[in-house]
């Protein structure tokens, strides 16, 4: 069966009135963009739903696109037919026959929205179910735990028949929940944190700290690539702020508090991020912290580090296990890039025994001992290099050499 339409459902946006309209407009725009490669597809809105009429466009290819749109809870390929019993019966049979694997049990759930239709829901359940049972021997009804639920919606404009429900990305439409900065190191965790933040409707701008020449150019390329991958989920460009952290890092590394180096670095990074957030009108900072994973991510460390900023620190991975994080990283396509072996400034100057339990007083004293820390932070903010990374930006590999060589 090539379906006639796709029914798209949103999650329960618990918003009403004007906000609801904004959400609807956003999701509509994103769905339009997702199916922009399919010129014959038509999009129509209903309350809390979107219908796409395929007009012969391929369902499978479109489904792949829709799966990555934030804010779509689920969707279903549907057959549309006229409000007549026989037509509904034959559509129901088509849908059942098109299942990839024939089930042993099923049930029919009819919703009659069109009250002018002569049979009510109860009757229809029997009329449709009985017909399917006659035509597909071996199939049984199981109303409690059916393998397949065949749904029939009789709307005034026509009847929709479908069975499969495809899980969407979930979350909220892109940008409907405000803007935050993402601390993007280039490791496995921070891109996943960015993805989850975006899925929940946040618009993000990424901040990356480099310590050139202690870190390499490739580390920068790697982060650009990660941002590019993230930008593909929304189809919109993402700003990447590259901060030179060399001076601050060198000063911290020389201040005789070896075990505190990471704590001090993270605090300075947050100060810089806070100032950038102010400039960029972002209201939060997203990090890839996962509780206990490394010394700076113990509760005690996060307490001392987090006190440097008033902004909410959003940590989508905080209670996630490493394997869970890796699974998502693989699924969103950042894992392979993340594991490229280029030093970033978090892996550089790592002391042998970083503290897992820093003392706030000692940390603050150590910061006071770095004579011009505040100036260096201002300088880092002033010299930030901002790139706009578009989903279709060509990477260093794609632009290598001269085009006519290939």
């Amino acid at each position, binding site marked *: 069966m090539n379906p006639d339409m796709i029914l798209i459902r949103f999650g329960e946006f618990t918003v009403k009135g004007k906000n609801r309209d904004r959400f609807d407009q956003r999701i509509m725009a994103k769905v339009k963009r997702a199916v922009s490669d399919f010129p014959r597809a038509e999009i129509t809105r209903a309350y809390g739903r979107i219908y796409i009429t395929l007009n012969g466009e391929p369902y499978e290819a479109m489904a792949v696109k829709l799966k990555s749109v934030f804010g779509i809870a689920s969707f279903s390929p549907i057959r549309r037919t006229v409000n007549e019993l026989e037509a509904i019966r034959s559509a129901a049979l088509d849908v059942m026959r098109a299942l990839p694997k024939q089930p042993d049990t099923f049930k029919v759930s009819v919703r009659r929205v069109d009250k002018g239709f002569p049979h009510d829901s109860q009757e229809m359940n029997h009329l449709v179910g009985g017909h399917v049972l006659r035509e597909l021997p071996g199939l049984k009804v199981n109303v409690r735990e059916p393998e397949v639920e065949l749904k029939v919606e009789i709307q005034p404009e026509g009847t929709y028949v479908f069975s499969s429900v495809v899980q969407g990305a979930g979350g909220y439409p892109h940008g409907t929940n405000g803007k935050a900065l993402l601390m993007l190191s280039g490791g496995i965790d921070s891109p996943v944190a960015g993805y989850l933040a975006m899925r929940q409707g946040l618009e993000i701008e990424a901040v990356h700290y480099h310590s050139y020449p202690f870190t*390499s*150019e*490739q580390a920068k390329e790697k982060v650009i690539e990660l941002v590019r991958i993230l930008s593909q989920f929304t189809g919109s460009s993402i700003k990447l702020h590259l901060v030179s952290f060399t001076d601050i890092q060198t000063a911290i590394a020389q201040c005789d508090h070896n075990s505190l180096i990471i704590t001090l670095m993270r605090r300075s990074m947050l100060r810089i991020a806070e100032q950038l957030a102010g400039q960029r009108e972002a209201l939060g900072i997203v990090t890839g912290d996962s509780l206990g994973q490394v010394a700076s991510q113990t509760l005690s460390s996060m307490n001392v580090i987090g006190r440097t900023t008033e902004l909410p620190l959003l940590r989508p991975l905080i209670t996630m296990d490493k394997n869970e994080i890796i699974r998502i990283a693989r699924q969103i396509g950042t894992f*392979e890039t993340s594991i490229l072996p280029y030093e970033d400034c978090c892996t550089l100057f790592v002391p042998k025994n970083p503290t897992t339990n820093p003392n706030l007083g000692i940390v603050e004293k150590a910061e006071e001992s770095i004579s011009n820390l505040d100036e260096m932070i201002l300088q880092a903010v002033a010299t930030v290099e901002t790139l706009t990374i578009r989903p279709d930006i060509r990477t*260093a*590999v*794609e632009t*290598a*050499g*001269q085009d*006519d*060589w*290939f």
Partner: protein
Amino acid sequence: MYYFDHCASTPPHGDVIRTMAEIMAKHYANPSSLHRSGQEARNLLERSRSVIAGLFAGTEANDWLFTSGGTESNNIAIVGAARSLARNGKHIVTTAIEHPSVYDTCRQLEQEGWTVTYLRADETGVVSADAVEAALTDQTSLVSVMHVNNEVGSVQPIADIGQRLKSRGNIVFHVDGVQSVGKLPIDLVGSRVDLFSATAHKVGGPRGAGLLYIHPRLQLAQVYRGGGQERGLRPGTENVPAIVAAAKAFRLAIESQPARAERMYALRQRLIACLDGIPELMLNGSRDTGIGGKAAPNIVHFSYPGMKPEVIVHMLEQHEILTSTKSACSSKSDEPSRVLLEMGLPRERASSGVRVSFGDEHGDAEIEWLCSTLEMVVQKLKPLERRED
């Protein structure tokens, strides 16, 4: 000069030579070096990989390994697969008409305790998918079948074989595609191919650059030890100029494949008609001309029973026509061709084969010239025939 030996090696494309020379001059850095120049070389290498992946539907850049050529690709594929698959069973199914880089590698594995089934071909040079399926046992872990035979140009039913392997669990399927790339359409995913070998110098590229496709589900064992390049499977400093030039050559060859096949099949038909008019010469392999047939578009192989094939090759050369006996790789040995014997041809016919393989520079006029020269050569040689009674 009429170069009718494209199966041995092809004249390199002008643009390919230019690319290679420019990269040799500009990008001599080692792709493993950390500095900018090294990174530029690395990026060239990776861009080449993306170009290759783009030419074979359904494959990703990371599925492709750069090697030094077809022989090395076949060795890495078969030995690497065998070593990692031994626990699934030590039985290999291959054909008796494979190139020595597959055939002798399998022979070597027999020394190491593997059992190998070498399937014979029919008189057209084709091994049937039925025969492959019938040879499978519960110990079979690897099947290796070439796409186009390098001597007679017969096309093996790899899509059909791949389909039959689908239902047989996880038997690994290797295809030697050295002679088919650029001549026939190739569908790796649709043919369920796990390992695929190719080489650049058969498609107008440089020597010293080959490809090995490895399906992502596979983990090959290391055959070589070294600096870990190419996932450790083919260590050694990457030959960047040759690899980029190879990517270009493959792109040019594969993009023009449909048009080439059509042109070549027409030439093949012409040459076969000509051979039919010379009673002393016998066509080997199939008479098919067309995609889906049993013969590659660019190869015609014939025997002159009772005549040493090198005599024909040398006589033709006096008229500026270059051809091969058997395959160029083994044309120095004085034995009958293993491939022809395994097709069931008599010894006399198997030791008197000549291979003509053409390319883009050939048209009707060249075939006509070849044909009239052949007629003349045969007339001259006729009194010298030695029939074995």
